[in-house]
């Protein structure tokens, strides 16, 4: 079997219909008799609901129904089930589908209004009269730790929902004998998700099957089904969840949301199809946000700049609820020690509730935070000792000859974390070569002539990918000779269809165009987990490969029986099984599929099992570790504080690449997300928890005019931990990017400039720093 497609930068099968405006996103779905939903939402951050008066609103034209939590009492009640229960969270901290007694952040849904148009539903939502008793709110996670702080949940005795620990080695001993110890405080700001398509749900009851049928803009259709079935006490088979085309996910759409439940409950109640489409303002106050944390870290290192140990404490702003359990804070601890070979580590993290929108993983989860911390510390050590930044890294990184390398950390199941493969120093050297670091001083001088401050930044990272337990796939050849792949893995633009087709087409000797994909419809494939954590290439990709091989073996067995040729003398190509060296002695796959579809009254040939099809589940039992080294150059205008990223170079290793074009696309988008975190994206709240940046005029996203080209160089170390040798690539661009940009800005501001331990940074901030010099 020769690889024709695997590894080739083939263009995407997804593109033509999306480009022609023929995509089917959730808001494109119209059902007969469909009602449109709008939510009544909390307008302040903390309050007790005294009463909800819907009478005026109900009388408005076109309004069909208005429901509060109390109206659902006969169907279901109580808080939503937690998506990821954790032993440290004794009681789950999840939303009710609609708030019943207390609202805990601006934007929390209180009532659902159904009308014959969205405009009318919104008008009526504004006419619902709420009597809410004001309760003091807390919007700052550090202040929330104070014993006298208001509580985010009035019934709690503390805002600290859990304290998580991680580490290894004898930290005290390593610190005691270290040549140097430094302590730094870091502040990493929360931002938003901002998939260009907001969330949305269309639900109805299928008249044929009676199933509650839901189309949702989600990364986790199977989780929606599982948790909704649990909540409604129904069999999973009575609920069908599909994801149509999804306009970006980036993590937040992996949550199961209150609105999904509320729409489902409303459909059960009113027996009509209901559509809810989140608008952008709602997205700012009701879709989970990203990774706000503060850290205090001590680092122990020697005179050569070799990093030996880290200890630290984190305050993690979890927002008002923990719908996703402790997954996000857990990724912060699990990302240590990154590429560094440490002797000891001692971390403690407080998960703190505030009256803000909950946080959950966004592209990279807390891995970008940890890359920021470690890379900033490496730069800090270099500055302290007056040595090159890269030397600290070369001396402190895990070496290629140490692979596989046990970091000292433990996985969620208690097994030791071990990096499977990689060359971190090699990646750093390569990126420095590619950006031509040796001649950087000349470029700095040239910029100076133009009145600009130019800086060089570097940052590396290691990324755990391929999170278990599995995604499955089935591969089936139809009597027309087409290959249909079904999988539970939903797609939000990653090009799964193309990548899966590349894998299957090679194994089965068919053309790419002959492969179609059915994903993320719980009626088409029995099980699925979620498209998160850069796991789909590893999990579903491997399953496609395994299933396709089973189909191949079956086709060969069939042909061997029919042609009376030994199986070893057969191969697949051109949509047929043929005798090696004699292309004309063949049986087409379509013919095999047709025969294996059965003929009335005729026995199956060779007593074979019917259907030219197979299903496989690849259990991803050990993580695969992708890694990368980035370098960038920025120019700072000393008068305005304006920061331009003028060059950005990525060296990345995600193992074997199924499609390098898609991998590059993931990396580019990821880097730009990270540049946004470093320089633009600022979700501001006042001390009462009121969001102040809820339009794209106030909340800045990276735009084409501010972005550089992203140059990418690959190293390809195949992972030994799955049959196709891949590692994930969805988040590796984002993880080191903010650290890299900040490193460059700090370098630009010169030796008298500040140690920059926060992001995003603004032009105003830069000017203030320069004035201080």
């Amino acid at each position, binding site marked *: 079997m020769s690889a024709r497609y695997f590894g080739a930068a083939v263009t995407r099968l997804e593109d033509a219909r999306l480009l022609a405006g023929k995509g089917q*996103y959730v808001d494109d779905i119209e059902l007969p008799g469909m009602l449109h939903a709008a939510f009544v939402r909390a307008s302040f951050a903390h309050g007790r609901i005294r009463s909800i008066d819907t009478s005026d609103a109900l009388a408005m034209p076109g309004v069909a129904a208005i429901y509060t939590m109390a109206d659902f009492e006969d169907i279901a009640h109580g808080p939503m089930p937690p998506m990821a229960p954790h032993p440290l969270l004794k009681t789950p901290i999840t939303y009710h589908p609609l708030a019943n007694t207390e609202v805990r952040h601006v934007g929390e849904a209180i009532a659902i209004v159904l009308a014959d148009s969205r405009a009318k539903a919104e008008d009526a939502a504004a006419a619902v009269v709420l009597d809410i008793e004001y309760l003091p709110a807390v919007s700052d996670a550090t202040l929330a730790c104070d014993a006298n702080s208001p509580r985010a949940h009035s019934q709690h005795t503390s805002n600290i929902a859990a304290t998580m620990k991680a580490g290894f080695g004898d930290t005290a001993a390593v610190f005691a004998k270290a040549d140097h110890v430094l302590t730094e405080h870091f502040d990493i700001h929360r931002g938003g998700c901002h998939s*260009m398509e907001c969330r949305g749900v269309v639900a109805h009851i299928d008249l044929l099957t009676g199933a509650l049928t839901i189309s949702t803009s989600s990364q986790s259709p199977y989780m929606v089904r599982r948790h909704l079935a649990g909540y409604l006490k129904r069999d999973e088979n009575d609920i069908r969840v599909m994801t149509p085309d999804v306009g970006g996910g980036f993590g937040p759409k992996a949550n199961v949301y209150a609105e999904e439940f509320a729409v489902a409950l409303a459909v059960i109640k009113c027996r009509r199809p209901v559509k809810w489409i989140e608008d952008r303002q709602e997205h700012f106050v009701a879709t989970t946000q990203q990774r706000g944390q503060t850290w205090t870290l001590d680092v122990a290192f020697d005179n050569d700049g070799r990093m030996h140990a880290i200890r630290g404490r984190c305050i993690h702003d979890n927002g008002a609820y923990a719908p996703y359990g402790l997954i996000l804070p857990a990724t912060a601890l699990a990302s240590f020690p990154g590429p560094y070979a440490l002797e000891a580590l001692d971390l403690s993290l407080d998960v703190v509730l505030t009256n803000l929108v909950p946080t959950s993983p966004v592209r990279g989860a807390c891995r970008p935070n940890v890359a920021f911390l470690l890379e900033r510390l490496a730069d800090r050590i270099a500055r302290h000792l007056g040595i090159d930044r890269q030397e600290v890294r070369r001396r402190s990184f895990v070496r290629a000859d140490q692979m596989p390398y046990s970091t000292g950390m433990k996985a969620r199941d208690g097994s030791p974390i071990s990096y499977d493969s990689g060359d971190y120093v090699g990646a750093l050297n390569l990126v420095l070569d590619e950006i031509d670091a040796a001649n950087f001083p000349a470029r700095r001088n040239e910029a100076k002539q133009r009145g600009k401050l130019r800086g060089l930044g570097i940052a590396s990272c290691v990324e755990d990918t391929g999170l278990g337990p599995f995604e499955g796939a089935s591969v089936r050849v139809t009597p027309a000779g087409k290959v249909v792949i079904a999988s539970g893995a939903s797609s939000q633009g990653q090009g799964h269809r193309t990548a899966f087709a590349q894998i299957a087409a090679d194994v089965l000797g068919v053309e790419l165009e002959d492969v179609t994909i059915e994903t993320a419809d719980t009626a088409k494939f029995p099980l699925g987990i979620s498209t998160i954590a850069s796991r789909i290439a590893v999990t579903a990709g491997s399953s496609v490969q395994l299933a396709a091989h089973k189909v191949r073996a079956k086709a060969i067995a069939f042909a061997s029986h029919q042609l009376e040729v030994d199986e070893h003398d057969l191969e697949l190509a051109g949509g047929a099984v043929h005798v090696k060296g004699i292309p004309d002695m063949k049986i087409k796959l379509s013919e095999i599929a047709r025969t294996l579809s059965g003929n009335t009254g005729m026995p199956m040939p060779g007593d074979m099992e019917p259907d030219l099809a197979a299903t496989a589940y690849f259990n991803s039992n050990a993580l695969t570790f992708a890694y990368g080294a980035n370098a960038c150059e920025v120019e700072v205008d000393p008068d305005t504080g304006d920061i331009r990223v003028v060059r950005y170079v990525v060296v990345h290793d995600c193992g074997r690449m199924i499609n390098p074009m898609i991998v590059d*696309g993931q990396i580019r988008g990821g880097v730009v997300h990270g540049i946004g975190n470093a320089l633009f994206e600022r979700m501001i709240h006042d001390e009462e928890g009121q969001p102040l940046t809820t339009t794209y005029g106030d909340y800045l996203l990276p735009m084409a005019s501010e972005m550089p080209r992203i140059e990418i160089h690959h190293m390809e170390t195949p992972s030994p931990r799955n049959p196709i040798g891949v590692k994930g690539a969805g988040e590796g661009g984002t993880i080191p990017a903010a650290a890299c940009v900040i490193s460059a800005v700090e370098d630009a501001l010169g030796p008298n400039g500040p140690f920059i331990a926060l992001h995003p940074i603004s032009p105003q901030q830069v000017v203030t720093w320069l004035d201080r010099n």
Partner: protein
Amino acid sequence: MTERSVSFTLNGEQREAKVDPRTHLGDFLRHSLGLTGTHLGCEHGVCGACTVIVDGAPVRSCLMLAVQIEGSVVETVEGLGNPDSLSTLQQAFVTNHGLQCGFCTPGMLMTLEAYLRSTPMPTERDVRIAISGNICRCTGYEGIVQAALDVAATRADRT
């Protein structure tokens, strides 16, 4: 509110329709005419996903009322090409991986379509400024920019 009638040209066809005066052009195209290729990403005029071409100029359909298109020539993504016969610009998006989720794509296409008609030989900087009112969260913009530059280069070759 009483509905108004509007007559306009849509993707080359003369059309008449009734419209509620408060309906914006984006909703009108999507929900009254069923042309769901035009997407709404912010509904406050910043993301550019909803861009269509009205009388030759790129317009944010979330900021224009449908009643305002009386007598106008409107072009949407559906008028550019079909899945099996994509326009040069659409094809350049395929070749350069100018889209991932595809949500910003119709707005990008219409912005660039209008731009390239009036600016046949842009620089990379020009293209970046031309789409600086269109947000893409997926691609990092590079494939989109390259697609536009490729189209400009091919057109220049031909003349």
